[in-house]
């Protein structure tokens, strides 16, 4: 089954990933081929098999909630593409 152009655009929107016309067409085919390879998983019966999220089966790790020094503001902001004072500058969320 080939992915439709609309499906590719929908996934890109979910990922907030801009794609060129060329990308959309290329990914439509490549992703379809890759997904076809995943069909093999359907051969296995996994009823009653629990999923594994992480291989060494750790439980939740807690630490005491104690204050400690954080990274200096100036260092954190040193990589900011746009800043204003001690803040990251962002575009308007509500227009």
């Amino acid at each position: 089954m080939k992915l439709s152009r609309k499906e590719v655009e929908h996934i890109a929107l979910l990922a907030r990933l801009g794609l060129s016309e060329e990308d959309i067409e290329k990914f439509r085919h490549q992703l379809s081929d890759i997904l076809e390879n995943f069909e093999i998983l359907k051969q296995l019966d996994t009823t009653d098999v629990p999923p594994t999220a992480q291989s060494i089966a750790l439980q939740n790790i807690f630490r005491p909630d104690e204050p400690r020094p954080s990274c200096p503001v100036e260092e954190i902001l040193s990589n900011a593409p746009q800043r204003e004072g001690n803040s990251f500058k962002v575009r308007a969320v509500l227009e």
Partner: protein
Amino acid sequence: MNDLHKLTIGQAHKLLKDKKLSSVELTKSCLAQLSAVDKKVQACVTICEDVALAQAKEADKAIGKGEVQPLTGIPAIIKDVICTSGIKTTCSSKILANFIPPYDATVMKRLKQVKAVILGKANMDEFAMGSSTENSGFFPTKNPWDLNRVPGGSSGGSAAAVAIDEAIYALGSDTGGSIRQPAGFCSVVGLKPTYGRVSRFGLVAFASSLDQIGPLTKDVTDCALVLNAIAGHDPLDSTSAAQPVPDFNRSLNPDIKGMRIGIPKDYFVEGMQPEVRDGIDAAINKLQELGAKIDRNVSLPLTRYALAVYYVIAPSEASANLARYDGVKYGYSYKDTMNMWEAMEKTKQFGFGAEVKRRIMLGTYALSAGYYDAYYLKAQKVRTLIIREFKEAFEKYDALVTPTSPTVPFKLGEKVDDPIQMYLSDVCTLPINIAGLPAISVPAGFVDGLPFGMQIIGKPFDEETILHLAYAYEQATDWNKKKPILN
């Protein structure tokens, strides 16, 4: 001594300790080698000469005071996915081309504590996604054994740098084979530790349940020394294990009599290069000669599902991890719009390369409503079955031995436009990440001058056994002594 850069950690450490060599001399020799050969090999994205020389001076001072650990004063190259405070960390991506981390990864803190020397940062497939280093957003790295071929990936820069003696050792990261496959392709030793053995704090995340940092070295002894320095629990990484860390030096014993080794036939895949198959057979015979008990009839039938499991789970985790590159906090940011969504979409469009976009798309699809159960949840369940299958095998064997890759290094450009073919080059390594096991690749031979590696897989947290077997094999062969001559 003109060839100081060719020393191993073990050899250099002895000379440093005996004051027959200074870290500054050793560092200068590596820097000279870098400037002589890196134009051809292109293993490094950043060379930090000033930092390296300052660190070398510090190391010499410490050595003068008798403070000398195995890695003190020894120059290394670090894969550019590991955060280095004050030194650019790009993940070989345009989106992080100017990113300077304000902090060190835990492994870097540990190296600095013992006064190691950092020469620079190694090229890689963008965000560690790839098997050839051709997905670097900057330039491809070349294989020192044949400059028309790939060094493997994603830690291709790290492996090539060690193979051509630009550094005494390197750190890489391995999500599906990214240390072992390039180690095999460049004829160096590469170890992926058990998931949780080494802290991932400061390792830029690709697939958080699979990623592990590990060493690339010139021999197995060095591999144990680097692992000693970086292994251990870290409160800053809640997935790091509280397991006690043994002294891996003690594993370096050539006597492997009676050790039980299983050879899973499922790893000798269709399409495997016949000469590599023969070479791995010969390596297995060598282990048998050394006294190991070999069972060539091991069957791990779920191996054939591992590729699909991996390419559901890894991109799914990646799609979540890479959502952070929104152009707000750091990295490249598309500025030519006032619209927030457009800025975010264009930042990723122009910042990420094709393979990264492909995997974000794949992962987003596998996690999306209506497909989550069929892909992601299903893959996680098969992951459980694969872990169980390994567990059963390890009731009978101390270790499993397979080829590291089905072929010798392929040509640059050969697989770039065929993602499925590229993915298949990791077919022997990625099941190990799915199960979180430790595995090492050691040089095991050459086909027409092109190297291949043997993979030794161990039980969780049993790096000792695989180092032990690797050491015995290395002592009985001389593959790791052969060096590439640049053409």
